């Protein structure tokens, strides 16, 4: 992973905007931003992250590579599309934010221990195993991410909801033994592997 990062640094030198344009989804639209700030003001999660979208776009143009790719902002995007609807230049802000998150993740520069990123990873690993989400395991893994004691505390705090979901048959305790999956598990894994291969090739990452 670090090699991909070094290759990118080597290739684009000091032109981070060009790097973003070439490698990030909708990256060519970044330069259209006119810094009006309407996206920052429209973001419902705005106060909870380090850099607002228009700040990220300016940082890209200023060549602040480490700060942008190490930012937690892209991982806080909930895809509400408020910014995209209001942007006077019609920048696909949501798509760019996800594109940046993906690029930072692939380069291994995304922030460690960022909760939404951790959860997304957990979710993907859980899902890609059997083609179906194992809710029970996902919940448990999420609760116990910070160790046994913290996990028990969190599970106790949430037990009301857990029991409710159990009664409504939204969670099955039997899932602890591996859970359900898609019928053609082999085929499913082949599809995922192929998709990854295509994406790697498109984005210039050798597997």
């Amino acid at each position, binding site marked *: 992973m670090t090699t991909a990062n070094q290759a990118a640094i080597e290739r684009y030198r000091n032109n981070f905007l060009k790097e973003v344009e070439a490698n990030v989804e909708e990256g060519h639209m970044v330069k259209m931003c006119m810094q*009006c*700030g*309407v996206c*920052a003001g*429209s973001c419902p999660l*705005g106060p909870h992250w380090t850099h607002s979208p228009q700040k990220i776009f300016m940082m890209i143009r200023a060549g602040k590579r480490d700060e942008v790719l190490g930012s937690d902002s892209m991982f806080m995007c909930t895809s509400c599309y408020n910014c995209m609807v209001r942007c006077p230049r019609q920048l696909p802000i949501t798509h760019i934010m996800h594109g940046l998150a993906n690029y930072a993740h692939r380069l291994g520069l995304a922030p460690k221990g960022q909760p939404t990123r951790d959860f997304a990873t957990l979710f993907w690993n859980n899902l890609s195993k059997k083609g179906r989400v194992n809710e029970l395991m996902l919940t448990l893994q999420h609760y116990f991410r910070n160790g046994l004691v913290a996990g028990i505390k969190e599970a106790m705090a949430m037990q009301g909801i857990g029991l409710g979901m159990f009664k409504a048959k939204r969670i099955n305790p039997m899932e602890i033994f591996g859970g359900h999956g898609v019928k053609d598990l082999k085929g499913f894994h082949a599809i995922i592997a192929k998709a990854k291969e295509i994406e790697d090739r498109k984005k210039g990452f050798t597997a």
Partner: protein
Amino acid sequence: MTASIATNQTILVVGGGISGMTAALEAAECGKQVILVEKTPVLGGRTARLYRYFPKMCHPTCGLEINLRRIKQNRNIRLMTMTEVVSATGSRGNYSVTLKVAPRFVNENCTACGKCAEAVSAEVANPWNYGLDKMKAAYLPHNMAHPQRYVIDPSIVGTPEGEKAKAACPVGAVDLEMKEETVTLQVGVLVWATGWRPYDAAKIQPYGYGRFKNVITSLEFERLADPHGPTGGKILRPSDGKEAKNVAFIQCAGSRDENHLRHCSRICCMASLKQTQYVREAFGDEGKSTVYYIDIRAIDRFEDFYQNVQKDATVSFVKSKVARIAENAENGNPILHGVNTEGYQRYAVEHDLVVLAVGMEPEITGVKLPDDVILDSSNFIEGSKDQGMFGAGAAASPLDVNRAVQSATAASLRAIQVIRKTASTEAV
């Protein structure tokens, strides 16, 4: 009536605002025959509805007055009010134009005594105050109205109210039998001085125009500041009539926005800078204006005006496009939400009144013009393929009064050139 005087050496000017008046006058004073067509009952257009001009802060009454006098004195201009162009066919030097003349219900006998307005009690929304108040259904549009003739609103024709107006008229000027007329003219050139209209602010959903009473447009603010306006020149906010001492101006409301108007309307920055001085004029040091902007575009030579406003302690500037407006339910104050991009501070600020500096949309947007007319991507008129039709003033580009007059003079010169060419070909 006027049909007989029109020939292919006649210039038809469409629109009687400052641009149309200028284009008509410049050509007429060169000895050309001009027909000036205006949709509303009076000349003056949007200029007559301004309180002051920038940068000299003088009143439009002055400049319009001079132009109106020139028009009254000039025999080469035929004025047709309440008239719209239905179609224009033909080519350069030889157009056939069909006009629709709406009934005024008042004939030339009118002496503007105002007895019909006294007699009538029905009221209609007042378009000259952008609907902020109501006027009698028998009315003189405004004090500077030319022609100085009353108008009977079609809504009271055929009702007892209309009969009251007729009975009150001492000179028999009220004619309720008037019908819509269609007139066809032959003309040589058309000058489209159709002007602009404010962009519909209600379409800018997050700003709540139409939902929140204390969010108004810059044009409505002009009327509030004008002594002839609905509040007699006092800056009172619509919700409760309280003095609006803390006013926010939001720039680019609809302009420079791919979702609304693509172009920069050019005048709005200067208009808001000018309007901050209305607040100062009304409340002195107690007044407070805040301008929310993307970047201030004090066009052309007006940078010094901007610098002087910057020195004014009652005016502050926030570099930010406001994200949305909410309303404080208790006092009706609009609350502005956004991020100040100079330092990236998040704000939620209450003001007494919010003025949206709305953009200029060509008045002809949505109107079918002759196929020959060339429009740009924002519907401003660039000209025509055979160069026999021209755009003038705000119909051609978003312009302030000063530049609209320049544009109209240029269009007039081009029109005169076409007429001269037509005349010389005919002589051969």
